[in-house]
């Protein structure tokens, strides 16, 4: 069986789903179920007694086979991310942490220096560290060296739907990496997810593409199928590209000889 392995955890699904931006919790839960995702991201928020429905721990935990991957969204420094990770672990009981440090809300690009430092500390503490990073092969390798469980380079800016704008760099990261590479952010369509998997990504993380779709549960299912198809194609081995035509039928002239 072809399983995604992260640390000592294995997953049959290679689609990781984010839970933000859904119109309501019910739609989000339907999308999670339809996606078949086994790793699901959540964010820390202050408790508000007037918005009790914001609390997703109970509803998500009731779905069988779900492991929570809290993120550190809201942190703008390594220290804040480490603090968020400690709190998140208390709540989730899960060693997974998505390190996400983006100090500028205009572009949400991750801070590589603070991310590196947070990852170094959290990996030493035994977390399964999943950093959201720019598609930077050097940083990806450095994060592998400090013990990250995966790297999650962006396809394009968070929520932009610009797809695999970084595919050239992603190819290098995949080629060089000894840990799973998971494309996180920017995907809009299932075909882009399939493409990422065909390139050799071990998994894909999507949120906006599902949450902002006309029918989120149906889109979640479409992404699941695309990720599975892309993975199957990668394992099957894509044909080599050629600069010129290569005939698939015999070109020997015979009509004139009849």
């Amino acid at each position, binding site marked *: 069986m072809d399983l995604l392995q992260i640390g000592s955890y294995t997953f049959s699904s290679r689609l990781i789903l984010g839970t933000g931006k859904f119109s309501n919790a019910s739609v989000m839960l339907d999308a999670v179920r339809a996606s078949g995702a086994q790793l699901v*991201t*959540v964010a820390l928020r202050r*408790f508000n*007694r007037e918005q009790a429905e914001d609390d997703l721990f109970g509803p998500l935990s009731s779905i069988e086979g779900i492991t929570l991957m809290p993120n550190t*969204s809201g942190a703008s420094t390594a220290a804040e991310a480490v603090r968020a990770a400690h709190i*998140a672990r208390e709540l989730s009981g899960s060693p997974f942490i998505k390190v996400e440090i983006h100090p500028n809300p205009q572009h949400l690009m991750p801070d590589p220096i603070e991310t590196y430092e947070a990852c170094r500390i959290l990996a030493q503490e035994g977390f399964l560290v999943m950093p959201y990073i720019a598609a930077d092969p050097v940083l990806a390798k450095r994060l592998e060296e400090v013990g990250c469980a995966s790297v999650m380079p962006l396809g394009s800016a968070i929520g932009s739907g610009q797809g695999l704008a970084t595919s050239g760099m992603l190819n290098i990261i995949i080629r060089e990496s000894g840990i799973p590479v998971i494309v996180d952010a920017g995907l809009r369509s299932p075909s882009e997810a399939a493409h990422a998997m065909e390139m050799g990504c071990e998994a894909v993380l999507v949120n906006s593409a599902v949450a902002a779709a006309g029918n989120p549960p149906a889109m979640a299912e479409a992404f699941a199928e695309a990720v599975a198809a892309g993975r199957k194609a990668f394992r099957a081995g894509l044909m080599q590209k050629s600069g010129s035509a290569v005939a698939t039928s015999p070109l020997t002239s015979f009509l004139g000889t009849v």
Partner: protein
Amino acid sequence: MITIELNGKQQPLPPDSAVSDLLSIIGSDGKSVAVVVNDHIIRPENRPSHLLQEGDRVELLIFAGGG
């Protein structure tokens, strides 16, 4: 009464209130809430015995939607 800072807002509390008392007062069962007092996480088993003091900064955090 004492006053603590709860999620950035002033909150009056009876003296000698424990963290678990605070959770009852605000209507939380505490199951899916992380409690941080003055930057220290208070684990569920310590909430009945951890007494809150005047001026304590208390953060109550939950998991909400996020990518």
